[in-house]
């Protein structure tokens, strides 16, 4: 048995891969490298074989790499020199006795601006798009004002490609005219790009909400008659702010309960905190508060607080603060309707037209016109799942829209709480009888019960030039569940 296995093992080794095992690692090859656009001091990683034997790397323009380090025999890190040619060319790799040129090409970057969008003025929080060429090696965008400058690092860009950078103008950008926009490159070089006016914008999509931050919720402590104390360390108050409220939750109040607040050195946290009677409101609430003024803030952050008193049990200590909650706003999530808006259908009564009349192609059992009693606004609500025509309007004459590529088609959407919209929507905009495929995910899975605006750039749909709308059909088709509401199908000029 043993012999049989040995024989078979030898056989197995003999018949297994018979490729020529000459030392391929010593043969100079270059497989790939990146990046393919460089500035002086850009790090280029080259992959191939025999990288440990490379003695010289020549960039287009007959410039030798500043330095080269073989990371292993298949990877070489080189630093690009100054003076690399703008014309693409091969990298030349040399060993002591061999030379090879890459098939891929490499060239020097020549960053340039084509235009900004918006071109002249932008508000903080708003999107700014820089369109140009060779923006690839941009490491940051700097907003330089007369006295201050703010930088947005590349990781915080909304998007970066070689021809376009999009970013949100930072909240703390200098708000003034003629702010200088600079590109900062990876090698430290900078380039003045343009000047633009920066105005104060509005923080988007959210609201300040009151929140309790727990700083103690360990085992309840029965205070007794000034017998026990609850200590909360300063580190728990690192984020407390002026005008927050220190709140002590309690249970089991006895007769004449009293509170007491000390700082970390057993001094009074503030005037009047040595001892104080809990009020009837405190007893009703189950907690008592102390405001965080400047003095209290300093004491909390330096020494924390020690809580005592008599005739109650401390169950929890929090501070009440204001936090910014994204998407919390009620109305700021929808785009405004302006004098430049071309309203395709707002579902209100206009002469003979109204939602029912205009929506004649949609499933009348699935779409219901709802009028908000409070505001009088009429919108469309899906009362059952639709698949196909969801919105349409083919009765209102909109004439000719010039330069459709400069417009964005929009609709306001509200998804009721508890409704989740599947991503598979197969959505299509219909613009002047022209069906434009958008596909899945046009509408988010939820809007948390709020109205938001859905937008699609008409140019992204391949539309351009002047379009005769007349009474052609406009609308939206796709698969959407019950509980989704639509309003204000419209065209708006791009920002």
């Amino acid at each position, binding site marked *: *048995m043993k012999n*049989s*296995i040995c024989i*078979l*093992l030898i*056989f*197995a*080794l003999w018949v*297994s*891969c*018979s*490729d*020529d*095992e*000459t*030392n*391929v*690692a010593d043969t100079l090859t270059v*497989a*790939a490298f*990146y990046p393919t656009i460089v500035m002086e001091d850009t790090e280029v*990683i080259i*992959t*191939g*074989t025999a990288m440990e034997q490379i003695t010289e790397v020549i960039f287009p323009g007959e410039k030798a790499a500043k330095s080269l380090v073989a*990371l*292993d025999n*298949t990877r070489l890190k080189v630093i690009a020199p100054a003076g690399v040619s703008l014309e693409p060319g091969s990298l030349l790799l040399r060993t002591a006795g061999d030379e090879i040129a890459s*098939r*891929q*090409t490499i060239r020097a970057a020549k960053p340039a601006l084509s235009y900004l969008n918006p071109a002249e003025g932008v508000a903080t929080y708003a999107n700014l798009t820089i369109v140009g060429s060779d923006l690839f090696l941009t490491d940051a965008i700097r907003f330089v004002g007369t006295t201050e400058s703010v930088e947005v690092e590349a*990781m*915080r*860009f*909304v*998007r*970066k*490609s*070689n021809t376009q950078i999009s970013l949100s103008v930072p909240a703390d950008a200098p708000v003034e005219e003629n702010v200088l926009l600079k590109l900062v490159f990876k090698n430290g070089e900078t380039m003045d790009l343009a000047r633009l006016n920066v105005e104060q914008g509005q923080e988007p999509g959210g609201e300040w909400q009151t929140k309790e931050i*727990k700083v*103690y*919720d*360990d*085992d309840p402590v029965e205070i007794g008659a000034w017998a026990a104390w609850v200590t909360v360390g300063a*580190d*728990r108050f*690192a984020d407390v702010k002026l005008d927050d409220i220190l709140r002590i939750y309690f249970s089991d109040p006895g007769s004449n309960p009293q509170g007491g607040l000390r700082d970390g050195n057993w001094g009074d946290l503030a005037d009047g905190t040595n001892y104080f009677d809990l009020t009837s409101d405190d007893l009703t609430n189950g907690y008592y508060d102390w405001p965080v003024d400047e003095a209290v803030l300093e004491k909390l952050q330096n020494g924390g607080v020690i809580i005592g008193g008599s005739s109650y049990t401390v169950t929890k200590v929090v501070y009440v603060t204001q936090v910014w909650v*994204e998407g919390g706003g009620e109305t700021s999530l929808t785009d405004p309707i302006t004098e430049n808006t071309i309203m395709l259908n707002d579902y209100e009564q206009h002469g003979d037209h109204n939602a029912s009349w205009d929506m004649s192609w949609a499933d009348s059992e699935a779409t219901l016109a709802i009028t908000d009693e409070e505001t009088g606004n009429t919108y469309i609500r899906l009362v059952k799942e639709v698949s196909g025509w969801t919105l349409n309007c083919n009765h209102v004459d909109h004439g000719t829209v010039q330069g459709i590529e400069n417009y964005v088609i929009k609709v306001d959407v509200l998804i009721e709480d508890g409704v*989740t919209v*599947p*991503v598979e929507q197969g959505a299509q905009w219909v613009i002047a009888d022209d069906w434009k495929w958008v*596909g*899945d*995910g*046009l509408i988010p*899975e939820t809007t948390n019960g709020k109205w938001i605006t859905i937008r699609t750039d008409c*140019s*992204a*749909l*391949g539309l351009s030039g002047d379009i005769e709308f007349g009474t052609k059909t406009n609308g939206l088709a796709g698969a959407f569940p019950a509980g989704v509401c639509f309003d204000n199908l419209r065209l708006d000029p791009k920002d």
Partner: protein
Amino acid sequence: MKFIKHISYLVLAAVCCSSCVDLDYTEVTSNDEEWVYQSPIYGIQQLVTSVYAHVPNGFDKNYEGGSGATLAAATDEADNAQSTSSVLRFYNGGWSPINPFDFTWTNSYRAIAEANNFLEKLDKIDLSAYQYNNEYEAMKAKFELFEYEVRFLRAFFYFELVRAYGDVPFTLKSLTNAEANVMKRTSAITIMDWIVEEMDAIAEYLPITFATELNTDIGRATRPMCLGLKARTLLYKASPLFNTTDDKSRWLAAAQANHDLISYATDWGISLGNYADLSGTNNADGVEIIFAAKQGRLDSWERYNYPVGVENGGSGMCPTQSLVDAYEYLDNEQAFGERFSGSTINLTTDAPYENIDPRFYATVVKNGDIWPNYNTAPIETFEGGLNASPLLNATQTGYYLRKYCDPNVNISTNNSTNAQHGWIIMRLGEFYLNYAEAMYHYYGDAETKGDFTLSANDAINILRSRADVNMPSWQGTPANWSERYERERMVELAFENHRFWDVRRWKQGQKFASIQIVTIHKAANGDIILTRGTKAREWDDKYYFFPIPFAELNKNTNLTQNAGWGSTN
């Protein structure tokens, strides 16, 4: 004996016949190259799609590349009720270089080979013929991203390999058979360092989300994924399995990377949502999700894991009492296993599930639950109950699985439905935990913030204060902090394929040497009584790393075997 001899011949014959396509390279150039590069959508894009298609997921590309059990059933999280499942080989002695669970090896190297091939021919992509098409801009934007997407994926697959095998052959270029046949193993640390550098190099070129792209594709590589892979890699690099000299600076680097992701997440619209939203339809679109593999509409997970007694239910992976013991209570920091440590618990009078961490209810199905939604009878896991022994494949742990199941999916023969499922590969919660672990190990206490904005406890407390969890916060650095952290991580990430690797990187394999199970019976007075028990499993320290498949060793004499798995060749 004769039978064994025949088996030996068959095995050896199979080895002899195995392909010479070393490191399991696929024939990525089998398509006509000219056609590929003249056909952007069907050619070039397909090359990229093919790399994505290798991304594993627990639904239909598990540890063997199939469906059924996941690695959770090879840990103390779960016991597999189906005794024929291959997952049992992880702990019953059936795991070997000849029978090696080689999916991670073959799948990852195939993906890497395809990625290398794609990246070497980037210069051949020429879209100029399409410049007058309506979709040209969208097409160009999409194709410009391919390089970075593929580089992310290549790093992702190297992480898969390093996590499973430690040192592995490392190449960033396409190999001929001859080259592949002589590849040596590169140290895991070298590869981890490369992953980190690679993520640093490419992250800023990838979108934060594809929702804002002209092509609103889903599941493609993003900037948060890059930061996530970097942060996860650095955590592994700092962990005892890889950090054999206890180099503290590695914990600091891990803390920094995880903190970076947490910080950016706010700006990028990634936040902690409800824990319950991690399961069910649209879970992959949740606000917390960084990387998920969407699987379309299916019911296989429910068919595998719904209890027996539910028509067509297979019981599948049953949560263990070891897992249940880890859940703490809302009223103090005691865990189930501490509060109810006795050998028996009267479920009727002791009410041990009251006030338990809400994540329990999102993960586990217990006796008395209505499950799934269409089932009219409550689940009975007591002996003789509707969903219990002596039914074939009934739970041996006393529990059934809820995580990732969509309770609205009906698997009955006459009314079957299905639903979209998403396998979570990265989510924000993991990185809060990673950060807490790294901070604790670097600073030696859980309250220090150092140069960061959060202490270890702060990170844990943010995680525990989700709206539908809201567990008591942690304070101080008790002696058992690390143990409690490991418990918290087990609870938070249950059934998400972390535990298998976490216990290994902590070098705590003995935790898998047995699991806690229970038997439940109905007493004469009607009370339901839970009795604890232990089920032994095999653990050997060689299990810290997977064995290099014997077939690979046989082809390449430069490859060495992992410790404990037999001869070097």
